[in-house]
């Protein structure tokens, strides 16, 4: 589904990505993990040409993005969804309008837009708050709006840049469930960049470890499932006590 051939990327004199080749298969959930500054986000952003590679070719769903005209690239991007760590919703648009804009950009048939937006919001469980503005939502809800927006045009691929890194553990589990749903029910190929091992291990089929702009290793794993996170106060105290006795302060 996604093929990178000898892709490299430099900023000024610093080479962030050093000739990486990578193949991501249709229908899988592919993880990219690595230390801060290893180049994992840049690698992801190359997959929809948010970052233009210095050398190499990037192929998504049979189209060579690097050789497309500007117009065709925009068209190709409409079938590559993307979500971000900080959600990047338009704060002055309602939940409904945030999803709608994605359909407008893709020239989705006007009459079917409303029902499609509602369908996507139902998929992420937010149809009841579609008139609210992002400022009124929790982080988890914002990320779900972003997912609804990203899947509105039935993309083949969903790129996730640290999708749960600004969320608490319980909300992280919720978002991972939604992403799993997007993969299983809609058949969307997912690429997740994260520095959180738990996130990667819970839903990915294959994982690439990036170090200093190079692939350190790629391994196939058995996703161990999303852990239900118990965050009651009682549980929090228990966890604190686990590392030795606790004095009541």
């Amino acid at each position, binding site marked *: 589904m996604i093929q990178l051939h000898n892709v490299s990327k430099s900023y000024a004199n610093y080479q962030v990505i050093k000739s990486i080749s990578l193949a991501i298969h249709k229908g899988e959930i592919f993880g990219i993990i690595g230390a801060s500054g290893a180049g994992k986000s840049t690698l992801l952003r190359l997959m929809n040409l948010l970052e233009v590679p210095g050398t190499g070719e990037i192929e998504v769903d049979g189209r060579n993005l690097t050789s497309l005209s500007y117009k065709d690239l925009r068209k190709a991007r*409409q079938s590559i969804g993307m979500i971000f760590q900080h959600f990047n919703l338009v*704060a*002055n648009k309602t939940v409904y309008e945030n999803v709608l804009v994605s359909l407008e*950009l893709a020239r989705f048939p006007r009459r079917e837009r409303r029902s499609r937006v509602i369908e996507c919001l139902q998929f992420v469980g937010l149809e009841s708050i579609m008139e609210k503005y992002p400022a009124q939502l929790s982080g988890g809800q914002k990320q779900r709006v972003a997912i609804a927006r990203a899947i509105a045009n039935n993309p083949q691929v969903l790129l996730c840049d640290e999708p749960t890194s600004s969320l608490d553990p319980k909300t992280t589990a919720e978002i991972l469930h939604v992403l799993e749903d997007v993969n299983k029910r809609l058949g969307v190929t997912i690429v997740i960049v994260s520095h959180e091992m738990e996130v990667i291990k819970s839903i990915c089929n294959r994982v690439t470890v990036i170090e200093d702009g190079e692939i350190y290793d790629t391994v196939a794993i058995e996703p161990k499932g999303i852990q239900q996170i118990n965050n009651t106060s009682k549980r929090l105290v228990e966890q604190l006590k686990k590392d030795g006795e606790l004095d009541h302060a």
Partner: protein
Amino acid sequence: MPEILIQYRMEIWQSIGQTFVMVGISILAAIIIGLPVGTLLFLTRKGKMLENPFVFSTLNLIVNIIRSFPFLLLVVFLIPFTRIIIGTAIGTAAATVPLSIIAIAHYSRLVEQSLLEVPKGVIEAAISMGASVKEVIFKFLYVEARSGLVLGLTTSIISFISYSTIMGVVGGGGIGDFAIRYGYQQFKTDLMIYMIIIMVVFVQLIQFTGTAVAKVIDKR
């Protein structure tokens, strides 16, 4: 109603009308030309969608030069240009030329600043959804920056009123000119004070409206 205001009511209404024409045309120039120029200043910056050092530094230089002129000097300096455009350098219509030019320079800078406050991530999201430059501008940038654009325009309009008061030098008229000619030069201090009050009321109204509108449309 004070006697003096009734006595000069025709002149006062006429002056208010002249101020409205001068400020109104300046506002139009600010929106029709200043907004696109400001947007271009933003888009041609380093790292932005239409990055273009030549266009950016040229526009930036022109805007800076216009804004560094003492306004009175700009009016005089532009007289030959005004004559080409309007056919005369004297009168209210002629006065709108330098006013519009400063209006464009003034508002474009404020537009650029408002757009710079739009989170980079929002623009990235737009590009990742396949938005064209035009769509990024109208469906994302202006939507997200709209309260800043309104507040900037409010600030600009108040400056235009202030600039318009000196257009008496080219016979542009207006309340400021009236206050100077009748209030100051003819020693009718009370008349001058009334004119100042009228302008204070205008400015208050504009600021109040601008702030209220900006607040209502800001959902961030």
